């Protein structure tokens, strides 16, 4: 956990620890799928920088390293073959935590401070406080957080918060050979993406789009897509934080807290009003209980 970064929001806390002492602009990764060649340099860089364990992969008939992200594999290029009006496409997209502005994982997490959103938009798991319940995975519309079996905690891309904290770009960005990845302020990355989308449209890809889903108030990963069909890239078309998660966090949880508080208050009120419970008139009840053995 990066100590010098201000926390904007924290899981299971009614109020954040945001002091406003430090300033930090929202940052973002830029991914241009139209110039990505699926070389997996980002996968290797992620593994090495984060000192992750090797996953025992095996050849199953695909260029894709794993079917989905893994607690020991936080950055995965997805390969999809698709014929579009007689034009064959081999679509490649770098998958990792999207660092939502409105993070479903954080909303779902019941452990105070186990998931935090820093002032710069990075969403991070604080393993010190994580209880490994997996609720964050339920809350994530992108299927990102994974349970680490030997560690007993949840794990995912940190957006290299430890590198960003000291002024470096994320490891995946650093390793990218083609320049399809970039890193900077969200504002700059959106501008870069819009420029590329404009160029693609002029080259005949009328549906080209910058994927920055507003259902989660945008993400700190913006992705240039040649086709406005997020599902072709294994992205949700319109991701939202689920109603249940939202309900848990915004309705049920406060209600629960209120109910617990009310129960305590009620108990005291009851005691104050009626006094202590009187001993039973006879032993029948207790005997019946012990007779169960």
């Amino acid at each position, binding site marked *: 956990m990066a100590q010098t970064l201000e926390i904007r929001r924290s899981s299971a806390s009614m109020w954040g620890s945001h002091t406003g002492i430090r300033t930090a602009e929202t940052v973002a990764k830029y991914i241009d799928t139209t110039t990505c060649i699926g*070389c997996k340099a980002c996968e290797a860089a992620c593994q090495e920088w984060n000192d992750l364990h090797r996953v025992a992969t095996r050849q199953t008939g695909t260029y894709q390293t794993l079917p989905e992200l893994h607690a020991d594999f936080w950055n995965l290029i997805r390969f999809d073959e698709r014929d579009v009006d007689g034009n064959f496409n081999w*679509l490649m997209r770098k998958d990792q935590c999207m660092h939502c502005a409105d993070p479903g994982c954080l909303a779902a997490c019941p452990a105070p401070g186990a998931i935090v959103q820093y002032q710069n938009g990075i969403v991070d798991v604080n393993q010190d406080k994580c209880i490994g319940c997996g609720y964050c995975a339920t809350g994530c519309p992108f299927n990102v957080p994974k349970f680490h079996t030997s560690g007993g905690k949840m794990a995912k891309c940190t957006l290299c918060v430890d590198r960003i904290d000291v002024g470096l770009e994320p490891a995946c960005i650093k390793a990218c050979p083609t320049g399809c990845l970039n890193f900077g302020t969200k504002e700059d990355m959106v501008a870069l993406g819009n420029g590329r989308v404009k*160029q693609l449209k002029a080259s005949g890809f009328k549906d080209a789009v910058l994927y920055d889903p507003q259902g989660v108030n945008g993400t700190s990963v913006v992705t240039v897509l040649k086709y406005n069909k997020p599902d072709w890239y294994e992205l949700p078309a319109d991701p939202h934080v689920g109603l249940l998660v939202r309900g848990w966090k915004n309705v049920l949880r406060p209600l629960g807290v209120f109910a617990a508080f009310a129960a305590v208050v009620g108990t005291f009120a009851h005691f104050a009003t009626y006094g202590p419970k009187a001993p039973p008139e006879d032993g029948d009840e207790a005997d019946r209980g012990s007779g169960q053995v």
Partner: protein
Amino acid sequence: MTNGWVDIKNADVILAMGGNPAENHPVGFKWFMEAKRTRNAKLVVVDPRFTRTASVADLYAPVRSGSDIAFLLGLIRYALTTGRFHSDYVKIHTNAPYIITDKFSFNDGLFSGFDGNTHQYLKENWAYEGDPKTQAYSLDQTLQHPRCVFQLLKKHVDRYTPEVVEQICGTPKETFLKVADIVTSTGNAERCGTLTYALGWTQHSIGVQIIRAGAMLQLLLGNVGRPGGGVNAFRGHSNIQGATDTGGTFETLPGYLKTPTAQLQTLKDYNDSGSPTTLNKQSWATMNYWVNYSKFMVSLLKAIYGNAATKENDFGYAWLPKVDGNYSWMYIYDDMYRGSSMRAGAKEPAPEGFLTFGMNPVALGPNVKKMIAALSKLKWMVVVENVEIETAKFWNAPKEYGGAPPSQIQTEVYLLPASGFAEKDGTFTNSARWLQWKWKALDPPGQSKTDQEILSRIFLAVQNLYRKEGGALPEQILNVSWAYTNPVNPDLGEVLKEMNGKALADLHDPKDATKVVKTAGQQIDGFGQLMDDGTTMCGNWLHSGVYTEAGNNAQRRNNADPTGLGMYHNWGFSWPANRRIMYNRASADAEGKPWDPTRVGIQWNGQKWVGDVPDMKPDAPPGTYGAFIMLPEGVARLFAASLNDGPFPEHYEPVEAPVANPLHPNVTSNPVALKFASDKDTLGTSDKFPIVCTTYRLTEMYHYWTKHQEGGVLNELQPGFFVEIPEKLASQKGIANGSKVRVTSARGSIEGVAMVTQRLQPFKINGKELWQIGLPLHWGYAAAKGHTGPLVNFLTASVGDPNTWTPEYKAFLVKLDKA
């Protein structure tokens, strides 16, 4: 590369063919994407498979493996018939106007001069016609003479209509025409396109002719010598360019000087054979730069033999081995296997010992079964490597490779631990001809030694034995100059200085004899200062300029780029003469004005050529010399009499042909292709082996090395061998993705996991469906636990190109079954 990696960003059109740069050169591929982003360049990919490169292309065209010449000649025909070629360029910078002797002809798949007994061509039939009166070549600047190169070419390619291209290559006509439209859009002064290729072109029995066809296309479009243009070969390893430049193959000495043969008894004979004479007496004469051959050779001899090389003893020329046979590697293994050699005329014994450095012949050579049988006949073998490779344990190969049991193999194998690339300093010469110094990152482990130390220790031990005991031809060994500060482990900076060359006596200005240019002992500035009287020495004239009195120029890291074209003249050193674009005189018109003023290669400013380092005498006004200074005619060759298999490219099927050649069924494959005739050299036919197979590399793996990594991340990213199979073929055969399949050729059989994909499609050839499958090559039986796999070269044949003797790995015949 004629140009460089960075220069690709200057292209308007990139034709990527015979290579998969996104897969194999992902870092350099940055410049492709840069061209797309900044110039909106169009990337056209022509490949049998829909590759990683194709995935980011603007247009992909499928082409059956081995049919590239038909595709390229189709493009040339399209350019010539539509007029979409750069005619001003063609007239002044190519041999299009040159008239060819009437002995040249082409009939039913054979060029004139074919000898059916030796299976070789007599190349005299393909000569230029001289004008006896003027003592010059006969030219027709109107390009109308029926025997001028332009008209002969037009006639030759006339058969390659879009329909014929479709019939041979399996490329749909509409797709071919789209490619033709984009590619020929650069056939003018305003636009420029680059051509990139790699082993997808070279590893064919017609490899050199495919490359020639590509070069001819680029010449017709006027794209050679210009920023954003060129014919650009991507080399397969980080320093393969440096190895080739430095005599890495048997037929060349450093700097592409020829290995002497026995007919050339004296230095004069040898130098004369290397310095071509020219008839060019008209305006636009030629520099014919090889007239300096003797300067390069004498300076090389002075580097090899030092003070022992004197004018009186022909500078030790007699001591150099004379090589009469072909000692390319497929021949060497054939000799080993057969136990004798007939190539030098008389029957000779086969080699009994073998040193192999940084090479894994069992894995990377064709026909593994023959290779293992060949090594089994040696008395001893020294393998110098970082890890125990397949070659080092050939005697213990899995049974299916057909080797004898270990107890019956007498070969004594020595494995000397070498150091890896990061464990030593020195230079890498990249595909762009840039020599870049690298610094050692860590010490080699245990007793591993650097290559130079291993070589030096062996050499000094042999020299010592000669001193003590004498032996045959002692001068060859005893006269070698080994004057390094530490002879046992020479400093590579010192070796680089030797390659650059130095003055052995004071050198004077040729224009002013009173002026001393270099005093004795000083490093020379470049090969222009070399002499043939023994007053200079130089280990490799082509690299001269790399280590001057200014220091080690390979270490320069200045990224100033005043032109914005990415030439970076103060970054490393680019041979020759730090020139970033070869043939750059052709980037300008007859008056020396650049074809495109926004992309200046060089231009004439009234006094001299400015821009890149000129590929021209710097103060020779336009019109003095032709742009192609290394050729005696001074112009680029659309018609080249120098190759062994024809002055024009022609479509021939692979040696293992999936179909008869529709153009000339009597001559289906290259009539002069390299073949061997041992009992292990079996070839398959399409009735038994109906599927075309090709081999290739993957981004995640480094050749046959990554599989040795214990716990490395790359084996995690690409966990094992697979067989890429078209979806429709898989469904016909009931093969499920991820299931086991068996691939069998006439030579061997291997098993792997099926990767069923739409990226491979059937080719419609002569109306019939033809299938192609693919195999990545990175596995073998020597590997870290869990990372072994089959050797794909168990399937490939010892057949190859007649000019380079490169094996035909990219198109051979197999059958496919469920395992």
